């Protein structure tokens, strides 16, 4: 029992220690790494990824996985750009209506995802991967392969207006991180995620409607992907069918490296935050100390294997597909 406890303590704190070690490491190699300007740069890069990571965290806590984020982010980003333009193209005017609308669209996409997974009884990684392809396909269909510009100054203020050195989008992301934390710890839904992830049979036997919890989880993740999509659009000022590219790899890596166990039931949004920061600090730090950025995917790949290996209790797993 003591071994298990120590293991859990280790898993709980290891990611944070890794993050601190990385910051010290990069600062030692190049002191300019440790500056407000550079931290702002990391925060801007991390904000959309954090929203995707928080969304997928709920799913992974349930023991499922969602690989649809690339399609969902692309589709919601493109939808946002079009609706925003239709409503006058200004946040000061009617344009703000686009924001709740796109959140709903994200939720509906997630809902479909969950329904395909639960109702057709398809393993979530494949159901969501396929739905992700459909999402990207829909984004291509809407744009015809073109780029949709969003140049409203008020909306771009998310990037350009700064408080204490950090752009507004960082605070928006922080706010929704707290929302995620609130859902996780202070709502029945949040507790149910852990119940399903900790042992589905047990949760079912205690009268929990597991199907509904799963579908709700996917819908909730979809809403967070929509937030991520709008932050990306605010950051780069445009939406296209590849807006969501690479989010899958980066967000799954972040969540797993942050210490959310793939088997479900362990970890939460703070792990997602630490994981996203680890990934972005590595990404940024490699550039700052002059290493080529193309090593990033390889390093992340090895890191994710390492993280899964460390977080797996080998005695509990008989075999793996």
């Amino acid at each position: 029992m003591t071994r298990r406890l120590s293991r859990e303590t280790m898993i709980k704190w290891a990611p944070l220690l890794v993050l601190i070690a990385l910051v010290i490491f990069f600062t030692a190699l190049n002191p300019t790494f440790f500056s407000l300007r550079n931290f702002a740069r990391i925060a801007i890069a991390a904000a959309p990824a954090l929203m995707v990571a928080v969304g997928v965290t709920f799913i992974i806590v349930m023991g499922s996985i969602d690989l649809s984020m690339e399609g969902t982010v692309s589709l919601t980003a493109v939808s946002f750009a079009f609706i925003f333009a239709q409503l006058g193209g200004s946040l000061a005017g009617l344009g703000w209506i686009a924001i709740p609308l796109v959140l709903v669209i994200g939720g509906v996409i997630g809902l479909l995802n969950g329904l395909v997974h639960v109702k057709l009884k398809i393993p979530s990684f494949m159901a969501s991967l396929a739905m992700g392809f459909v999402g990207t396909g829909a984004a291509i269909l809407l744009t015809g392969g073109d780029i949709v510009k969003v140049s409203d100054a008020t909306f771009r203020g998310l990037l350009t207006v700064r408080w204490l050195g950090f752009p507004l989008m960082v605070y928006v992301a922080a706010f929704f991180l707290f929302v995620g934390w609130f859902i996780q710890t202070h709502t029945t839904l949040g507790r149910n995620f852990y119940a399903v992830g900790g042992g589905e049979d047990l949760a079912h036997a205690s009268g929990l409607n597991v199907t509904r919890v799963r579908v709700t989880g996917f819908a909730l993740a979809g809403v967070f992907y929509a937030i991520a999509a709008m932050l990306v659009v605010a950051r780069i000022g445009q939406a296209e069918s590849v807006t969501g590219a690479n989010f899958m790899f980066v967000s799954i890596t972040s969540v797993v490296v942050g210490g959310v166990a793939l088997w479900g039931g362990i970890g939460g949004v703070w792990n997602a935050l630490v994981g996203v920061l680890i990934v972005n600090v590595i990404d940024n730090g490699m550039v700052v100390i002059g290493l080529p950025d193309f090593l990033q995917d390889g390093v992340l790949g090895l890191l994710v294997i390492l993280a899964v290996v460390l977080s797996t209790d080998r005695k509990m797993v008989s075999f793996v597909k």
Partner: protein
Amino acid sequence: MDIQRLKPHLPWITLVVLVAIVGINDPGFLRPSNLLGIAGDIVPLFIMALGLTFAIYIGGIDLSAQSVANMVTVVASVYLASMGAWVAVFCVLAGFLLGMLSGYVTTRLFVPSFISTLAVGGVAFSIAQWLSGQRALNMDATQRNETFGWMIGHTWGVPNELLIAAVLVAICLFIERRTTLGRALKAVGAGELAAAASGLNVARYKILAFAISGALAAIAGLLFAVKLSGGAPTIANGFLLPAIVAVLVGGTPLTGGVGGVVNTVIGTLIVAVIRASMLYFEIDATRQQIVFGIVLIVAIALTIDRAKLRTVK
């Protein structure tokens, strides 16, 4: 007739019906030269699907196939000048080793295959970007024709790609039907615990399955590079979805154990006909991805063996 008894025959019935529908609407589609052309064009995709068949047959998945193929297009373009024909051996070996790595991580380190292959795919992508300097590369045309020209010509009116595909099918079919490895893979796919209990070295066979998948993904990449006379780190993007679709509509379920090489041949032909029919019915190419995504969901839902999944995660 019982649906369960009809199920194994659904793939080829689907294929015949699809061909008939397109053929009635456009008789030109059924011309032998047209059919051969369509079949020849799909060969790189088919080879990747053939590899994926092994990974899916044992109940796993290989999401690195596309990245491995990407990497190989770059490796082939970079080293053709210095290595000559040996570059082919080098590429296949690289694919085999990356597949082994996926298999090792999956079986010995207990990482689910969709994550381990995704991670190994990340490694392959990094290698491709590093070797290519993040640019698209071209092969020297004369050298390509001297070394690999035989891959893309015609013999008696048949595209050479089809002959290559036929040879690979024969080899894979031999492995599946006539070797201990093939029987062991079937045992693992049908029931991993039972296979382990009867003394089979499950981990070794699973590693081999992923390695075969990697090697075939590499051959797919090599052929693609020769066809396009060049390579780039993202050139084969868009292969993964139709390749998985090909395996699953062919009737090899995600849960493994049944189906196999012949099914993937039929599945790939279905994919080819769907693609071609979209042209004939003037469905915009931008809709292709949606169609394949939905076909994928339907195919999984129809084929998956739910008795094997105690809880669907």
